[in-house]
């Protein structure tokens, strides 16, 4: 994991389940419509585990990692 983590969030795919916010609210938020907002597109290493978990468990598949 030399490369820093880079997250992408597709707001057109997002269904607003809010799982990412519950998993890592330092990196993800929801706007007033419930759709994902990326607070930290290149999150620091301390959030890597939570971010990977959020990406893996996103119900709509709106979240992706650049290294994937």
């Amino acid at each position, binding site marked *: 994991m030399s490369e820093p983590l880079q997250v992408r969030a597709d707001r057109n795919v997002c*269904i*607003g*389940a*809010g*799982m990412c*916010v*519950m*998993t890592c*609210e330092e990196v993800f938020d*929801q706007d*007033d*419509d*419930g*759709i994902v907002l990326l607070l930290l597109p290149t999150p620091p290493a301390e959030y890597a*585990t939570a971010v990977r*978990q959020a990406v*893996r*468990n996103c*119900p*709509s*598949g709106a979240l992706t990692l650049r290294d994937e």
Partner: protein
Amino acid sequence: MSEISTVPIHMRRAGFDPAPELSELRDGEGVRRIPTQFGVDAWLVTRFADVRAVLSDVERFKQPARLPFQSASMPDISDEELVRRQAGNLLALNPPEHTRLRRILTPEFTVRRMRRMEPRIQEIVEEHLDVMERNGSPADLVSSFALPVPSLVICELLGVPYEERAVFQDRTSRLLDVSVPLEQRMELQLESRAYMAELVARTQADPGEELLGMLVREHGDAVTAEELIGIGNLLLVAGHETTSNMLSIGTLALLRNPDQFELLKKEPERIDDAVEELMRWLSVVHSGTAKVTTTDVEIAGQHIPAGELVMLALPTANRDPELLDNPDKLDITRHGVGHVAFGHGLHHCLGAPLARMEMRIAFPALLRRFPGLRAVSDEAAFRSFHVVYGLSSFEVAW
């Protein structure tokens, strides 16, 4: 049409666990053609990866316009009438109708919105525990706590008068009981729509601050009355049955696993992981909604032609050894297991943030109030015939 006397295969259980034959199916060929009560066969998908794949793929696995049971039980009803009856029922819809309605509802169930409801849910939980304590041990946990708490919460959120609950609580429960003859369940569904139609009419005349009123005020043009009825009904049923059964059977699960009960009592900060683990381990919604293949597909090496019915066994998927180690053990120290108890994909439970919030308040409050909680009997009243698994009653003492 006769009453069914055997539990449909995909709903079979052994206590908290999926029936052994279902686990064997998952660990064996993974998918199998099974008969359904509707007279047509369906493919039952049992592995975690396959279930997730089907739920993620709305192009190849669609909600059918007309389910086989609707053909069997309502042969005289036109497709137009069926569409009318399904209006607003998100579970029965495909994009783009589904997308339009879901986008309107999503803002009402954000994590932030749910946090705002937290104090009120706490109040409701404590009030019910007060009454239980006042009335004294023993008590039926279902009727004194597990059912009324989520029922009052969803009524307040939607704007359904809680004092009318006698009318819909019983109907809601019978509607999801597969041992009730299909014709009767269809009747119950019509009654539900009629009740909600009246409520929607009242709301349209005088829209309040609650969810139904908000939909009328802010989306009055975009959402039809029929859709409002469907949305209202779906949320009312879903809000009652799911969380309610999780609270009762979840408490029983903890009591039957005393090490987990003690751990959660001692370290209530584990509640978030405990809720996820209880959801995974219990999978109270046995099955995802039935889908129809739009093209030839392959699942677990099995070729399935276009136009076939596919059903998803959530309990076996959530106990898949490919998903996690020691899957049949209830272990609230697990973290980050991506279960499918709330479904997956576009139809992932809209109310999941609300359900989670209710559970993370209710379980610790119950354990705090009655640290010596115990089951009165060694027998448990599992609801075998119910679309949402749980307990019909649960006598507890403290």
